[in-house]
């Protein structure tokens, strides 16, 4: 348990979500174990008395995330309701409490997976592993980041920006890391056997995480070798894919895909429609933000854009499609494959970016990174047009 607590504390730091020495992570079996000593541990330990959980994560995010969550908490009051897919599907909404006490945290976490305490940070929990707390923590930051920039654009479009938002926005933008433009040198194809495919997927997955093109453990990656799709397992971390890739036969002769990514159907459909050999899926933030930016007024589908949008929307020619995670009549398995088959790249509304490639992952990664950088550039250009 101690190892797990330390592992996810390290990941929070490496992914730039927290400063060095900041994360507090506890795990409980018969005894409570912390990744490090801290004055807050005694109060946080009481949370385990009031909740049936086995792990807890508590940390103040690194900048600009800390500024963002504090700003949103002040603006929204008791609950934040982002409209990105991760929130809609898994978090539902994000609760806020203003008191750093066990009782306040228990009260909030008895209803939701994570809670924001302004000035203090985010607290989240797990029932089987500290990994859950890490995921909820990371997802909360992602959702808040997307909401902060989306709200700003919307307010600018409506002429409703106030000074406080402007100042905070300026601070946040000033703290954004410069976009990466140098491409990694991923394993080159052709990839002729399973070992080469697995190695190439692991390297490409790590690069997606290192370039900040995916949050927490979401996103997925696949490669087609003959009639087998090798795809990352559901809930796998793209930077830890060794042993977490399922070989799924396209002829339906096995069910090894039972633990495969929920997007297996979409990936397979892309392969059936094209001669592409690989797919990358990440959640780059500005691609998600731009997918949700729509100037249309009085749309009857407002609030249901992620499943009902009928417009032929694009970002600089890149298609934006509706669709929920996984299968079902409103699943992205119905909307994404034709778009990727046509363009080699598509954004799912409020969700993330899919790119495909021939031969190896270098081309797909290039599209992923360039699309995100283009969306980031476009965001600020569009904002400049609105704000003069």
């Amino acid at each position, binding site marked *: 348990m101690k190892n797990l607590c330390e592992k996810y504390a390290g990941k929070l730091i490496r992914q730039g979500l927290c400063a060095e020495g900041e994360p507090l992570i506890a795990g409980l*079996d*018969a005894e409570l174990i912390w990744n490090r000593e801290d004055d807050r541990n005694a109060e946080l330990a009481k949370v385990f008395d*009031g909740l049936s959980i086995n792990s807890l994560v508590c940390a103040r995010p690194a900048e600009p995330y800390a500024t963002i969550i504090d700003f949103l908490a002040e603006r929204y009051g008791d609950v934040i309701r982002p409209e990105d897919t991760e929130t809609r599907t898994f978090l539902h909404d994000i609760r806020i409490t203003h008191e750093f006490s066990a009782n306040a945290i228990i009260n909030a976490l008895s209803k939701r997976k994570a809670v924001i305490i302004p000035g203090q940070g985010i607290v989240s929990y797990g*029932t*089987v592993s500290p990994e*859950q707390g890490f995921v909820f923590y990371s997802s909360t930051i992602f959702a808040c980041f997307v909401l902060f920039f989306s709200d700003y654009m919307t307010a600018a479009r409506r002429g409703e920006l106030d000074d406080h938002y402007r100042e905070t926005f300026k601070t946040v933008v000033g703290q954004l890391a410069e976009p990466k433009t140098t491409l990694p040198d991923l394993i080159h194809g052709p990839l002729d056997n399973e070992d080469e495919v697995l190695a190439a997927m692991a390297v490409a997955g790590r690069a997606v995480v290192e370039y900040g093109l995916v949050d927490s453990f979401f996103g997925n990656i696949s490669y087609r070798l003959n009639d087998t799709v090798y795809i990352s397992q559901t809930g*796998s971390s793209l930077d830890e894919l060794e042993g977490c890739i399922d070989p*799924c036969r396209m002829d339906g002769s096995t069910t090894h*895909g039972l633990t495969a990514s929920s997007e297996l159907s979409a990936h397979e459909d892309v392969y059936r429609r094209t001669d592409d050999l690989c797919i990358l899926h990440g959640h780059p933030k500005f691609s998600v933000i731009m997918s949700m930016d729509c100037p249309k007024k009085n749309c009857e589908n407002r609030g249901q854009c992620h499943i009902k949008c009928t417009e032929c929307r694009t970002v600089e020619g890149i298609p934006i499609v509706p669709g929920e995670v996984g299968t079902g009549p409103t699943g992205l398995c119905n909307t994404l494959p034709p778009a990727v088959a046509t363009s080699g790249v598509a954004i799912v509304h409020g969700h993330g970016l899919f790119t495909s490639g021939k031969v190896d992952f270098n081309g797909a990664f290039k599209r992923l990174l360039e699309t995100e950088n283009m969306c980031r550039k476009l965001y600020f250009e569009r904002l400049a047009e609105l704000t003069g």
Partner: protein
Amino acid sequence: MSDTLFGWTGKVLHIDLTTHEMAAQYPARALYKKYIGGKGLAGYYLRPYCTCETPDPDLPLLIFTGPLCGTAAPTSGRSVIMSRSPLTGAICDSSVGGKLATMLKRAGWDGLIITGKAATPCAIEISDDDIRIRETDLWGNTCDMVFDKLGDAASIATIGPAAQNGTRIASIAVDRYHAAGRGGLGRVMAEKNLKYISVKGTGKIRVHDEAALKKAREEIKRLTAASPVLLGQHGFANYGTGAMYDLMDSRRMMPTDNFRQTRFSDAPKLNASAYKAAYKPHSHGCEGCHIRCKKVAEDGRSIPEFETMSHFTALIGNSDMDLVMKANDICGRYGLDPISAASTLACYREITGEDFTVGSLIKALHIIADGGFLGKGSLDFAQSCRKPELSMSVKGMELPAYDPRGAYGMALAYALSTRGGCHQRAYPISHEILRKPVATDRFSFSGKARIVKISEDQNAVVDSLTACKFTFLAASLEEYAKAFTAVTGIPTTAQRLLEAGERINYNERIMNSLNGFEGCDDDLPPRFFTEHGTSGGGVEIKPLDRDEFLKARANYYAVRGLDDDGRPTEETTRRLGLELDSGAVQ
């Protein structure tokens, strides 16, 4: 709670088959809040009679529904059948699908308490408030014959010849394709001379807030759509639970040759895809379920569930898929638990050294169904051969198709399950194999004690609501708490529900303690601590470390608030608001 009762009907029907008396009981609202329904309420009503032996007319057979049953809450149409097990002597509850719970609820009843013993074979027929006990000439009929004769208008729960012949691994078949399979509950029904129960209900369940329920339903369905194991293209909706077969093979934890090996060489040609190609099944589901994991072959026979697929192949050394279909069909028609039946045959095979042929396997199944020497389960048979260690069971109930050497949380959960060798109490396969909610290290006991305890509490809630545990491979109590509040009008949270789950489990521990169960019963067959499984493919299947297992079990006792020998304590009993019983509490 408001004056009007939402969700629950507020009535429980007590039927005494000895006197033919029937009485409606009106549980206090506090009781509903304390035990929820389903498994929780059934356990509450079992407690005063939990030491009764199977033939004792006072031993109740309990059939309970939950507050969500009959509403739009997804996958909530299950019922729980509970009594004391004739096989193990421990408590035994079984979550069963079909439309039994929905019909019972619509007839106006939250549950049935059946006691007494009819003088002659009888049936209970319920049609809303019209309840009749009538003699039946169907005694001796196989389950399929009962379903054929009674039709589909009402929900039917029936026993087959196996129960009537005294088999301790007899099931209760429900609505043709479903069963309360484990622990010999069919035998309890047979002791009461009760052949079948038919229920038809036409009422509606009152829901407090339809809009909030719709929202909760959307959240739950969104999560199930995102679940590879449920609605994914290789998931249960497409292949049934047999989709697990390839996974268990690749993880090298398929129990083979009575758990002597963990890999079966013929497994790749006996997987769910092979059944789909050979038998062209269509989907069938429980009432109120959108996942529809049950698969029915073109010829009307059930496609075996995963455990049956695995145990009737790898466990007994059979590579004939059609023989699995035949064995499953016999178990269904005669009313046998296929897990215990196959495991008993595997025990027989190891002890005698005799491999099965098509003829000998079918003959052996008939011996079990006829109440012959294998009909009392593997432990009885192994003991009669003075080799009790070759019964692959816990507390006398045979283990399902997940080898515990390949999933240490599963090992712990098997040992600690209150009804014996059962995978569903904590279902660590969820995180150890299926990666939900996240993956855990399957070859480690670290942290598993508390995980097992929390999972047991969650699943006790699920079986009390009464929802389907499979759904919780995607959704969580967070979403179902919203559905509960929407239906009942009672504000709650996942954590509050878990408190009820803890109480429900502890109540079962108390009942088992009253029947003499203690720490030595929370254990696995010795084979798992001394023999290797089948290593390979980069995976080593080692024997379980005995000391680590015992440490994890001790941790569980501490987390659960039991004493060092796994018995209930007065302190925890009081904390959970349970009745003290000097015979059980230390």
